[in-house]
């Protein structure tokens, strides 16, 4: 197998700007098939933009996106996306939401994926009646039924409480191990990134500031020495960076941002 062929995604000096403001700048990145990559960074660093480019919702200003050696031109049909707010259709029941966009009723497949996310007993419920975690489970099932080869996760756990988040992290990890798709998780939670990903990429000002492999065995022990030191290392890099992309308003509002003391890190 040629080296190129093991890559699912290849980004070649990708650029994206909105009205002259650069969001992504000369971003080059290769992602292998079946790899779980987490992208971390401050808000405004371009991490969500990267996912939107990969889903085909937006087009790059310059550079190339290759999906399995082919340039991405329109909506990426083999990818599915999970959003922070779930985005279930409130006027469709759980089962109908999962079957959205599929031809005909795929009752059996829908039941299979709903079973995988542990919601097979609530198929006739309205989304409004579900908790935040359950909504994201439905969103995950809706993505899985399409058998995506690439799953894009745009901070899907950002709005959940701490316990539900831990539960969902291991659910996503298990499902990824079972299905073997390539996963790209955007998150602002460094610990979450280190807990689930093979590789953590730190984006700063639209470029890759760090690209770390996480060689820890799964399921990961959060109190493992390498685990904690990796989290610290990434956090240190994020916090040490002089704030360029986001204008610092801390002085205007009479509020001093205290960086976490060095001794802790």
């Amino acid at each position, binding site marked *: 197998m040629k080296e190129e062929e093991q890559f699912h995604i290849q980004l070649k000096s990708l650029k994206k700007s909105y009205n002259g403001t650069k969001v992504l700048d000369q971003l080059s990145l290769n992602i292998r098939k079946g790899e779980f990559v987490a992208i971390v960074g401050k808000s405004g660093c371009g991490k969500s933009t990267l996912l939107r480019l990969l889903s085909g919702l937006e087009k790059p200003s310059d550079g190339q996106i290759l999906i399995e050696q082919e340039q991405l031109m329109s909506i990426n049909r083999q990818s599915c*996306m999970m959003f922070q707010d779930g985005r279930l259709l409130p006027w469709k029941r759980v089962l109908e939401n999962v079957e959205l966009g599929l031809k005909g009723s795929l009752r059996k497949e829908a039941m299979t994926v709903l079973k995988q996310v542990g919601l097979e007993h609530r198929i006739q419920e309205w989304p409004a009646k579900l908790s935040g975690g359950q909504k994201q489970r439905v969103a995950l099932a809706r993505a899985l039924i399409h058998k995506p080869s690439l799953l894009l996760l745009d901070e899907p756990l950002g709005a959940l409480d701490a316990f539900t988040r831990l539960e969902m992290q291991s659910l996503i990890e298990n499902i990824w191990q079972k299905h073997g798709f390539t996963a790209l998780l955007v998150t602002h939670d460094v610990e979450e990134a280190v807990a689930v990903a093979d590789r953590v990429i730190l984006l700063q000002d639209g470029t890759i500031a760090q690209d770390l492999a996480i060689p820890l065995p799964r399921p990961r022990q959060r109190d493992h020495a390498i685990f904690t030191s990796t989290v610290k290392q990434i956090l240190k890099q994020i916090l040490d960076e002089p704030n360029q992309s986001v204008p610092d308003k801390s002085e205007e509002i009479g509020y001093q941002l205290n960086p976490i003391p060095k001794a802790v890190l």
Partner: protein
Amino acid sequence: MRPTITKTLYEILPWVVPFLLLFIWQLTSKMGILSAQTLPAPSDVLIAAVELTQSGELFHHVWVSLGRAVNGFMIGGSIGFILGIVNGLFRTSEMLIDTSVQMLRNIPHLALIPLVILWFGIGEEAKIFLVALGVLFPIYINTYHGIKSVDSGLIEMGKIYGLNKVSLFFNVIFPGALSSILVGIRFSLGMMWITLIVAETISSTAGIGYMAMNAREFMQMDVIILSILLYAFLGKLSDIIARFLEQRWLKWHPSYAKQP
């Protein structure tokens, strides 16, 4: 035991004041405090209703009025609905038409009565035209606004999950706009009756408005009151229909769901 008593009480409570008023009205009329020339007793109105029903007159007038209302509503409603959908979906037609519609909307349609009489005469067309005009704008505005305010995140999601334009409209955009469209329908049903009341007093040979105007000529107070009550009843009826539609089509919505 307790909860059932509270529940029954809550069901009775809204009716206490109307019945009390009705009772006082009946009592004062029969005692001669309230002159029959000012306000006839409820029992007299009831007798008038029974008499007119037996002669078939009541049914005839209600039927004619209802026909005008429904025709006008269908014509104006469909125009408003289609315009709202098209302008909500397509930028070009929005640019072309919306400003003009918003401009026309600000003319009180009842102010057009002299013009409408000159255009259509005093026949059925004038009345139906006025009703259609009154109904058009509330439906247009709420349909247009409903389509415009559909969550763009859901539309984006639909695109990612492979919905084409038609299924995007039927699965995401239309259901998302439906609650606003129903508000428009409810509002325009009210508008429909108000317009009809005024339009029917212009000049007619049938209808509830005619019944009231005719009764005025002969000082039949009970028939006048009966006509007013008929309008109130029909208005309430259309409100119940609108409410029923909301409960049926918006049952996914926590604030419209029927309490179990």
